[in-house]
């Protein structure tokens, strides 16, 4: 029973933590660029506004989810997880194969700074709405993905709270490191994390979809780690086969 319970709870909390880590690092890069260039007051205003909007979305969605029958919820969330997870994994495979360039937080930071520099200049003591809106947008868009992942990995087994704690731990970790170094978190192995999370989300997608369809998986919850192992093996093999020769990469 214990092993069976942890075979779902562990991956749910882990997936929420690592997926949130990826998303929060991306949001942090933009917030850092906006705050450094345009001031921290409007940046904090936009960030808190977006967190409030996300809280409102969760408050609205939470009671609605309770009204959906579990099997229908598992099927709907499972299918959405398949679309989302397979998409992440496909991109991670292409990055691991050297076909798509790796995500570069330092480059994204510089691009964001360049865009904000080109934008309208700050008007004396007037509130900088452009900075606030940029921060709001970054936190809201990345946050929506976190909310979806937390609900998707948690709702099928009443694990939304443990998954939320995983996401919150990721937010606090990024905030703590970010405040300490005050630079984009460029050394986070983003593609490795995305590869791992893509594997887990795809495995959850197959698992929940099957449960929603009424498929009795052999070993019940223990089937989840087996699916994850299969996705990992196939994804690594695909990346290895697609990897271009070194000469072509250099060219």
């Amino acid at each position, binding site marked *: 029973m214990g092993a069976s319970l942890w075979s779902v709870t562990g991956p749910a909390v882990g997936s929420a933590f690592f997926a949130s880590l990826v998303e929060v690092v991306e949001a942090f890069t933009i917030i850092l660029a906006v705050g450094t260039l345009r001031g921290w007051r409007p940046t904090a205003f936009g960030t808190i506004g977006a967190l409030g909007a996300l809280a409102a979305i969760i408050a609205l969605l939470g009671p609605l989810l309770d009204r959906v029958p579990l099997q229908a919820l598992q099927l709907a969330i499972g299918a959405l997880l398949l*679309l989302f997870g397979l*998409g992440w*994994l496909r991109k991670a495979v292409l990055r691991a194969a050297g076909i798509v360039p790796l995500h570069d937080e330092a480059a994204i930071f510089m691009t964001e700074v360049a865009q904000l520099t080109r934008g309208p200049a700050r008007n004396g003591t007037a509130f900088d709405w452009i900075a606030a809106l940029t921060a709001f947008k970054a936190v809201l*868009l990345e946050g*929506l993905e976190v909310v979806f992942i937390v609900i998707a990995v948690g709702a099928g087994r009443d694990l939304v709270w443990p998954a939320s704690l995983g996401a919150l731990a990721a937010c606090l970790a990024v905030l703590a490191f970010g405040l300490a170094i005050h630079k984009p978190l460029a050394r986070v192995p983003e593609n490795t994390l995305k590869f791992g999370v893509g594997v887990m989300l795809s495995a959850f997608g197959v698992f929940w979809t099957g449960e929603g*369809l009424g498929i009795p998986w052999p070993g019940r919850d223990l089937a989840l780690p087996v*699916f994850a192992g299969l996705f990992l093996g196939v994804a690594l093999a*695909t990346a290895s086969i697609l990897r271009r020769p070194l000469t072509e990469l250099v060219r």
Partner: protein
Amino acid sequence: MSLIREIVTELFGMFMADGWLAFGALIVVGIAALLVSTLPTYPLAAGVVLLVGCLAILVTAADREAKRRSTE
């Protein structure tokens, strides 16, 4: 309005970044659902189709994108 459009685009992109992959995954789910209803005594057959189908979709989608980029 531009913000709402961006949010909708982002949400759509979350699930439909690669149209072929999304369509393929939904077809696999549809086939599995059909198998469950037509072969209720062998529900595991639908499970095998779902799992193997998703793995095949992943490999094919990555291969398609790799080929598309190599011809650019």
